[in-house]
């Protein structure tokens, strides 16, 4: 009895609105398999989260999204704050009710889009200052605004407003200021968060590419004991080697029994490497966005179905894929769509974009399902080998950053 309780306490942890249960750990790498229980149900980690920016996943019905196995998707606070706006969200009863999605939602803080898109934005201690492009009025977006909006959205996971800086910025003093300010803003977010019993607020580790600064930030953020932790400021154009170093540096310091979310990551190679480095959650618009440009993500690489060579290609989008588009029409719920048909309507009828979005989301979710199964079976290194083997014609073409990063956690891709 005593032993069982002790076991439980070392493999799971709970906070007001979240339970994290560690199911298995890879004996070679830092990869882990776990179960995250959120206010709208349970999700298995590692996990890819598709981005339904404006409360809609690019033409898919919530029913179609649910059928891919997705139980946690993103909405963007910036977009929902503009349309439909806080008043409508309050009247409707939040984003779940708005989009008829009974599973989990994660929202960003809205600050990233402000800073990156409004050239006139400046960041001060109070918040993001910008001129309303419509009439030039000076405006202020604060951590308190972001929390208030995310409370109205009702997301299961909310993100703190942080001071985002390009990781490649050479200004170390400004980088330190941004990191320290992000910690102060976390305190303001925690104070302003009105529903901690039903919504989880995650902190965001900043500090650019400076590992010492990242470590300092980890210590400060971890001390604030948020239910989950994000590694932010990445995927902004830094070298992949630097990116991997930062992720590895942070995961080493983060508490084992909390979910770790690397923001803005979505290329399949990045997902597999980040899982090996000990990260659990990822989001990216790339798979859904590239679908609208006619690109299908497959285990053999990305193919552009707009190319003329696919006009008469009657194979499924990806052979042996289990998504509703690719499975033969005789099967339940399947369509038996061919590359030729997607090509026929690419950039012409919206249905082609819907089909590729469905396929790509399914691919990303399935990649993480397979990674999870591999961790549980303690075969993650073999999984990583097979993944890169299928993706590249030979070992000499493996990206060096991936080889280096995986070598750091005990996988040598260049040796069988």
């Amino acid at each position, binding site marked *: 009895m005593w032993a069982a309780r002790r076991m439980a306490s070392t493999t799971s942890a709970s906070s007001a609105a979240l339970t994290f249960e560690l199911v298995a750990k890879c004996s070679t790498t830092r990869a882990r398999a776990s179960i995250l229980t959120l206010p709208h149900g349970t999700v298995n980690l590692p996990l890819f989260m598709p981005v339904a920016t*404006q*409360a*809609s996943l*690019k*033409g898919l*019905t919530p029913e*179609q999204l649910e059928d891919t196995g997705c139980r946690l998707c993103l909405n963007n606070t910036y*977009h929902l*704050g*503009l*349309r439909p706006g*806080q*008043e*409508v969200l309050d*009247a*409707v009863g939040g984003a779940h009710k*708005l989009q*008829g999605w009974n599973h989990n939602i994660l929202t960003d803080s809205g600050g990233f*889009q402000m800073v*990156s898109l*409004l*050239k006139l934005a400046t960041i001060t201690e109070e918040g993001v*200052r910008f001129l*309303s*492009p*419509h009439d030039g*009025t*000076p*405006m*202020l*977006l*604060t951590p308190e*605004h972001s929390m208030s909006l995310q409370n109205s959205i009702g997301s299961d996971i909310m993100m703190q407003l942080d001071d985002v800086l390009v990781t*490649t*910025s*050479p200004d170390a003093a400004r980088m330190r200021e941004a990191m320290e300010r992000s910690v102060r803003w976390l305190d303001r977010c925690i104070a302003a968060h009105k529903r901690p019993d039903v919504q989880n607020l995650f902190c965001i580790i900043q500090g650019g590419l400076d590992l010492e600064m990242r470590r300092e930030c980890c210590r400060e953020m971890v001390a604030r004991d948020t239910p989950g932790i994000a590694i932010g400021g990445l*995927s*902004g*154009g830094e070298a992949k080697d630097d990116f991997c170093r930062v992720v590895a540096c942070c995961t080493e310091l983060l508490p084992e029994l909390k979910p770790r979310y690397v923001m803005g990551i979505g290329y399949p190679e990045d997902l597999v490497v980040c899982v090996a480095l000990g990260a659990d959650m990822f989001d990216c*618009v*790339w798979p859904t*966005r590239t679908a609208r440009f006619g690109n299908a993500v497959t285990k053999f690489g990305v193919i552009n179905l707009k190319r003329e060579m696919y*006009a008469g290609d009657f194979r499924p989008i990806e052979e042996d894929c289990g998504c*509703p588009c690719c499975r033969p*029409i005789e099967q339940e*719920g*399947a*369509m*038996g*769509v061919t590359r*030729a048909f997607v090509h*026929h*309507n690419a950039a*012409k*009828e*919206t*249905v082609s*974009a819907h*089909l590729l979005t*469905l396929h790509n989301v399914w691919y990303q979710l399935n990649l993480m399902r397979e990674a999870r199964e591999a961790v549980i079976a303690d075969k993650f290194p073999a999984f990583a080998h097979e993944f890169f083997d299928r993706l590249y014609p030979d070992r000499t073409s493996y990206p060096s950053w991936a080889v280096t990063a995986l070598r750091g956690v005990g996988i040598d891709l260049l040796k069988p």
Partner: protein
Amino acid sequence: MTTDGDVPAAMTFELLKSAPPAAAARLGRLALGGRKSVIDTPNYFAITSRGVVPHVSPDNVARHLQTGGAYMALEDFIERPQQNLSRRPPIYDHPSAHGRPLHSFAALPPSLITVLSARRLPAVPAPLGNSNRSVSIFTSTGFQVLTTKDYLAAVQALRPDIAIPLADLTHKELTPTSKRALRMTERTDDWVREWFADQPDAGPSPDPNPIATFAPVLPVSYSLQWEYLERLSEDLISRLSGLAIYDADILPDLTSSTSYANLAALPRLSVAAPPSPHHVLRQISLGMDLFTLPFLNAVSDAGIALTFTFPSPSPTASADAPAVLPLGIDMSSTEHQTSLAPLAPGCTCYTCTHHHRAYVQHLLSAREMLGWTLLQLHNHAVVAAFFAGVRQTLAQEDGVAAFEHARARFHAVYDPELPAGTGERPRARGYHFKSQGGEGKRNKPGWSKLDEAGAEAEAKAAGARAEDVAAAAAAGAPDADVADALQRLLVSGGIDTPVSPPDADADELCHKGFAEVDKQQ
């Protein structure tokens, strides 16, 4: 659509209720050759664009649409791409385990039947007319000539369930001159005869995937095409399965003449583009069985949710009830912003049982594709229920009289026209229209940047890559260049939905809780 146990070898059409020889509403049942599915009539087929019901993926068609079939246009499949002008249309090489390549190519649910015609509905008029041996068609890469022989070969290769032979049509609003109308009849007469002459008679074993021919009936007066109709009735009747009717006004003549009694027994498919449900009811009243409804896809694109039912609701006695009910409501209107009501009261479609007006309004206002998808699912469900209501009424004792009574009430209760819709429509594509000189752009730009420099960055955006940013930084480029490269990256790859600066003024931003007016500046 229902399913019976037997699979008929050839198409059969059974009239359950009719009052021949007068032109009157009739209740029927169509069984297609080689298929289990049975289509109860009156009913409708969904019109496809390039093989898809617009905005509805094939899995959603299977799950949520109650249509009996899909109308397809050959011109949607045989364009010649610029980079490969001599390409043989790939659809002709589509392998099909089920012997129906058109159906398989479009990944249609197995239970749906296909109707193939040469032209889209509605068709874009061609600048050049037809010739004695061909018609002008409009593909996504421009106008082409389609000969009668090529069309027949295409039909035989693609094997739709129902095919409509070529007709000499103008596709223009104007009534053709009597000289032109006479030529239309002569050519169509020739082409339909040739259609059958060029097809070998069925061998001893029945074709497992037969094609039913629905002969075109032209949008010209009876006096100009009676000879053609007589040919159909006397010479070709044994090989005809139905009629494709381009103008419903021919029906009284067709049914009153005793010489065409055998034609009257054939199912009648309306390709006459009724502009509203009132016109559909009128055509049913004249004896039409099956419909293609161009207004249906059009109202969804316009942001309209249909709200009519048949039979119509009983007029309410209450004083504040509107005198006339609308046929649909404009879902783009901000009055629905916080409404949790279904699109139409009591509707059991996917959209109305899983979502509400507020969501559809939001999607239309955000120009999210799902808005049009949800409207399509709803509008098709409303039309399917409308036809089910018509059939139920006709199935009553003294059904034709009951139908006429309900039809009169429908006219009295509902607005004569569909609402126009105020929302922005989905992007118009090249094959949807023929541009005329001097008209503005059809599609608004999706978003615009703050300034000129932004527009330049946008132009470069396609090539922007993370590596550019890293390279700029590594090369010790000035901060401004790094920032610019990053900006391009964000625009091109980082953000899914292009982020336009808020189109709201300061008051609205405050009101929406997005930010506050900065009092320090």
